[in-house]
């Protein structure tokens, strides 16, 4: 089970907005936050892959997180940002609408994803409450193509999703 839930330590999360909702990811998973540059479409790629973008000489594959988790589409504007991750020596970016702030959650603030009901999503980690607000905690890795399988199959070893778990 995830360290996030059980070791009693507080953890830093990056809070961002998507289609009017607030989401949060573990801060340590984010390498960098950059502005959106010109993105080159890659024909025949999965629908949520916007394309490739150059960031200081490195090649970044950019995914539109809204499409990945199937929330409403919106145009890219001045507030849009790309969250950069380094996964197995590869640079991957996730387009989000707006980056808000860094928030520290205590374990007591976090509830398992099962409270959301509906279909299990491998990337859902739980829900955090902040006063009246509700933030959806997500894990970006299982969203990547070619990796979702491994994350699902090894359930419990690599990633662990509160309330979800391995079948």
């Amino acid at each position, binding site marked *: 089970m995830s360290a996030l839930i059980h070791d009693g330590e507080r953890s830093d999360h990056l809070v961002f907005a998507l289609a009017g909702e607030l989401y949060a990811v573990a801060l340590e998973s984010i390498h960098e936050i950059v502005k959106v540059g010109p993105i080159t479409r*890659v*024909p025949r*790629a999965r629908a949520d892959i916007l394309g490739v973008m150059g960031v*200081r000489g490195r090649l970044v594959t950019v995914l539109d997180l809204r499409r990945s988790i199937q929330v409403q589409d919106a145009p890219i504007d001045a507030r849009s940002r790309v969250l950069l991750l380094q996964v197995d020596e*590869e640079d*991957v970016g996730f387009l989000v609408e707006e980056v808000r702030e860094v928030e520290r959650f205590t374990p007591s603030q976090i509830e398992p994803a099962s409270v959301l009901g509906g279909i299990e999503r491998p990337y859902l980690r739980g829900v955090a409450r902040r006063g009246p607000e509700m933030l959806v905690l997500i894990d970006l890795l299982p969203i990547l*193509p070619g990796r979702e399988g491994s994350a699902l199959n090894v359930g419990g070893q690599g990633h662990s999703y509160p309330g979800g778990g391995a079948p």
Partner: protein
Amino acid sequence: MAERRDDAPDKAREEFFSEASELVDGFGRHLLALEESVESGHGPDPETLNDIFRGVHTLKGLSGLFGAATLSGLSHELENLLDDLRLGRIPLSTAVLDLLFDAVELYGRILSALKGEQAEPREEVLTLLASLAAVSNERSGNVAFIAEYELAPETLGVLTEYEEHRLRSNLQAGLALYRLKAKFPLATIDSALEELKLRVRPVGEIITYLPTGDGGDLDAIDLEILVASRSAAAELRQAVDSDAVLVEEVKKRDLSQARTPPAPRVSERTDDSAIDLPDGRETPSPPAADEDEPPHVSMHPAPQVHEAAVMPAAAAGRDISLRSVTQTVRVDIRKLDRLMNALGELSLVRGALLRYAEKLRSEPATRRLGMDLLGVHRAFERQLAQMQSGILEVRMVPLGQVFDKLARIVRQVSREQNKSVHFVVTGGETEIDKLIVEELSDPLLHMIRNAIDHGIEPIPERAAAGKPDTGTVALNAYQQGNHVVIEVEDDGRGIDPHAVLHKAVTMGLVSMEDAKSFSLEEAVSLVFMQGFSTRDTATAMSGRGIGMDIVKTRIAKLGGLVDIVSEVQIGTKITLTLPVTLAIVGVLTFVVEATVYCMPLSSMEEAVVFDAALVREVDGREVMTHRGVTLPVVRLARLFSEPPAPQRATKQFLIVARVGTRRLGMVVDRLIEQQDVVIKALGRTLGHVRGFAGATDLGDQRVALILDVPSLIEECLTAAEGRRANDASLAFRFGEGS
């Protein structure tokens, strides 16, 4: 969170592995040379034996440092055996050669065991050690021969084992032994000795130099020099041409005299006298005639004595572990990639510089400054280009690195299968990107193995077919433009297309309906289909299937193509066409609708204005006649479902792409320019997308995709090929050949 580790031991470990595997590779290479020299009847080449001995010795030292016990144990025993071989104490038989080849194999396995890749071959090592010990016991110690000569025991006593061996070999070969006595002034001893060596070299081999200790002159040294020669004393005297040097023949003892007891063996030179040999090379000498073999004297009419300086063997052994012999630096390829990336960044800087310079030049007020800046830019550009080719050069390695390993495999496999195979390699010096070389060894291994397993017939079958007993597997490499072509060819039984088709149908890979329309060549190519012939590989059928689909995928990943041609009873030839380098490519940039793409120049023939009127639709596919040949055509905008550009291009262009013998015309909207770009790989996230070899930064912050021509050709042509009806009779001949 990744485990924190100290960097230094890791680096040392890496260094150890790379040095050790280099030594093992060298060992294998030398063994092949040794085998060749033995097979050609020349006997083992002493220089090669010395090289092997030194390599194993160094390996022993290395493994000792790293606590690799099995490795150092094996090396120790091998060292003993090699020493015996080197000193002629045991003959180099085929059995011994086999043991040595086994050792190379085991070294490889032990090394990968140390890396944790596989279990340590403990059993095999023990077996080999036992065999090595058994061989060592057979050694034939024989000093009596030397003892028959009038040599002082004190002289014999200080001979190193190697010198003693050379002495014995020469005497056995019937050469005469001479003693040269000379006094050298200390001040000029180096040059005087050198001159004497030069004079003696054409007529004899210098066995050793020994200071006699007589004379008592403080400014000079008396030397006694033992020379073996085929010439008479008079000739030797003439060659030496100096009154200061006394030449006398060392005679056999009068047998009535009592025999001198055999000289004690001394493995290390005890006197480190003032004789510092200016020329410290070892002695390549005429092949040693061993007493167990018929003397090879007649095969070497002239005494081929090249070198005179004799390096004491034991001293040689002591030195090697201390001194690094080569001028080379090992570099992790990732470091080169980083350099390459930095270089890519620099070319972006160059682009910006050019833009500013031109802007300045266009303003009258700053025109002067702009011109100067352009000059600076040109110099910068030149240096960048030099740096780029420099880094590329470092990445290039000769294919011989892989080929040497393959020669060992051929030897091993042909023995296992009890087949006689002659392995011919050409073009080992052809250079290719290091990364490609690394990826090539597995596919080549498969191909060579298959050629012997399934291609080359057992001897009786060859005899029945009227072929020579020894089959030939040829490995050729050569550069062709920006590609390197590697061919593996055998003169075996070939692939029977009917049998392949039959099998593909029985395996359910091809429908009976489709099978009818395959041409003979297409049928042979079915061996590359995934899942083909993964079982019953040992049937009488001519299928050569182990992992041919893997070969194809691997080569495709490197941007290469595989072609196969085979004729029943004549043989099979598989051709790999690979790019020379993966890092930098010359491309033509072009536009499809509103998107810029890059076409590797190495994969294209030409770009011309596209005439849509020439296009015909055949069987649902577009083709056109281009330069008298039918060319399949694909419209990239359609293939890539490109969003339409705001303005339609009035005329279009046709880029003719070619890989190997296959061509494809690609219709594009506008051509931009040719340029060199640094390829960046698309990540695993885009692993599901086919058709692109990578992407590159074009310098205006925009990334452009580089077409993967082999995969596009594959995609656009393969599906079509299967449909072409070519040899209708094929379908009726199913069942034959199996």
